[in-house]
């Protein structure tokens, strides 16, 4: 593997609450290579967005990084002062969210957003920035970019707005893009177009993308590797084809079997009983143990870390070679 672009080491994120500290992301470690698309999948509340916001420096109080570190291009970024992090975000790390309107101010034209962002990060004057902006709009597939440049966000459809947000995220040619559910609010036909665009952007600009989603289908279409999160931990991480076709963690196995697939006939779907635990009620040992069909004695006492499981890593004692 080439030198990692991003290294997340033993990252934990917690909240201070009246009932004490709640750990929402619990000691996760992973790396990303330059240009790769890493999918992060899991049910709602698994800790995906918190992980993403720690990487972009957008973690909001009362959330805080409790321990661990984040290295970007071999430099620690989890403890940067606000102003430095703000510069890094936009220049080297871009962000795309589920609702494009969180990134767009309704009072300003699309052109204004782009020009301002470009001039903040790149040494360009107004005229150059405008040229660059129109080039970007063309690149993300917006027809009649000169005309669209003058328009306001509400004059764009949902899919077109998300294209604008992508243009904003790539305008300074970032090395890493964090995309948090970028297609969840879009219709299926538009979703396919946006995923295709993200993939092209990653290829052509060499940007690594962390693609956060609850939809395994999105991952299958787009990602190179996938990290499956459960209750604040990484349950399994590996090449996308291995994780989808040959899942190693009982949770991933259950998840894959629960997805209806056209052509796979079954009267009932396989189901994992129960629900993901709340933060204040995470079981000791393996947090999946109340729902796991393969649970055994050790799972109730010891917490498994990621260990080698065929082509992937899985946090499950079934893969303990010393067993």
């Amino acid at each position, binding site marked *: 593997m080439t030198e990692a672009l991003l290294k997340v080491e033993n990252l934990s994120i917690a909240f201070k609450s009246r009932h004490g500290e709640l750990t929402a992301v619990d000691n996760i470690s992973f790396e990303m290579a330059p240009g790769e698309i890493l999918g992060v999948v899991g049910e*709602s509340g698994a800790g995906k967005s918190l992980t993403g916001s720690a990487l972009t420096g957008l973690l909001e109080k009362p959330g805080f990084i409790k321990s661990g570190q984040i290295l970007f291009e071999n430099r620690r970024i989890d403890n940067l002062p606000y102003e430095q992090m703000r510069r890094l975000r936009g220049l080297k790390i871009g962000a795309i969210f589920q609702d494009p309107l969180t990134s767009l101010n309704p009072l300003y034209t699309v052109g204004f957003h782009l020009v301002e962002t470009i001039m903040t990060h790149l040494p360009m004057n107004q005229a150059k920035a405008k040229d660059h902006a129109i080039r970007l709009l063309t690149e993300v597939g917006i027809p009649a970019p000169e005309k669209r440049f003058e328009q306001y966000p509400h004059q764009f459809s949902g899919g077109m707005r998300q294209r604008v947000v992508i243009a904003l995220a790539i305008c300074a040619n970032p090395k890493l893009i964090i995309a948090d559910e970028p297609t969840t609010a879009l219709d299926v036909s538009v979703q396919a177009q946006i995923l295709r665009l993200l993939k092209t952007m990653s290829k052509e600009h060499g940007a690594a993308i962390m693609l956060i989603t609850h939809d395994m289908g999105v991952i299958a279409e787009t990602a190179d590797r996938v990290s499956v999160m459960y209750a604040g931990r990484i349950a399994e991480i590996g090449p996308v084809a291995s994780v989808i076709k040959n899942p190693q963690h009982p949770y991933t196995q259950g998840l894959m079997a629960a997805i*209806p697939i056209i052509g796979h006939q079954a009267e009932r779907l396989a189901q994992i009983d129960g629900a993901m635990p709340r933060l204040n009620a995470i079981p000791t040992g393996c947090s999946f143990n109340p729902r796991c069909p393969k649970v055994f004695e050790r799972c109730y006492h010891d917490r498994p870390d990621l260990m080698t499981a065929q082509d992937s890593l899985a946090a499950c004692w079934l893969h303990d070679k010393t067993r």
Partner: protein
Amino acid sequence: MTNKIIPTTEVDVQNLVKYFDVSAPWLSRVFSGQPKQILKAVDGISFKIQKGETFSLVGESGCGKSTIARLLVGLYEPTDGKIKIKGHDISNLDSPKALRTLRKNVQMIFQDPFASLNPRWHVKDIIAEPIRAHKTLSDNHAIDKRVNELLDLVSLTKVDGDKFPHEFSGGQRQRISIARALASKPEFIVCDEPTSALDVSVQAQILNLMVDLQKELGLTYLFISHNLAVVYHISDHVGVMYLGRLAEVRDSKSLFSNPLHPYTRLLLDTIPDLDMSGRDRMPVAGEVPNPIDPPKACRFHPRCPFANERCKTEMPLPTPVPGGYVECHGVQENRLPAYVPIVR
């Protein structure tokens, strides 16, 4: 999904139309000279649902699925057309007979189990509400007993009845709304995206529960979804909607093995490939246009790779095909390429 011995029509929808007036207020229209604006949410739709089966409506947002749901449960009155449930016309909501049919036979489950449950009520009172409202049972003891039966039916417990909605996860809240829908012993349930807000593992639990309940109680479902894989799993018949019209209505097997309408094929092609076969997807162009001023004639023609002159000038009407009907000139003229099944 069930053994149909003698098929009987539970729901019969004929030429259903629902328009919304979305004009600016009259006075400001007069000053600005704007014309009246009519949004044709549902514009001439017909289908039948047999007793005990699941009929699904699928399509992208804004195509009119929820409007049909609301028409079928009597929350909207049709602009035109007829809805018959068990042979009784329910199109006129001023008729006491229509209201009685609706109240007795029809219930609805919504997408958002968070919004549809009163947060200040105990779960047992939420479930008992239709029983009390329709006075199907009056003595409290009998109501309690019925509520406990219903909780049991959806795999919740008696203890859960004394809790509040916020104490439950999304999936459990959807169980509560199913129990409430079943309280008045309806035969027909309209389910508007009941699993769209749920995670897949929870979605599987709810879909399984719905299939079990259908078998046990002989329920008829109208199931609304934008997810074709879910529709494949649950349906006997499927209607594919586009901008207020039904593009294709087929039995599930025919639709998924040989989809005919270009829009159905487009939708099928957008489904991510979980079998990782590496198949190439047709790049899909464009977005659903504005329903206030939809494309003339065939509404799909601006996005259709097979559109010709006739498609732009003449509205396609239902053409019978194996397992149902399709609204498409290309199909009727037999000039579309054969469907290449996705290898799975």
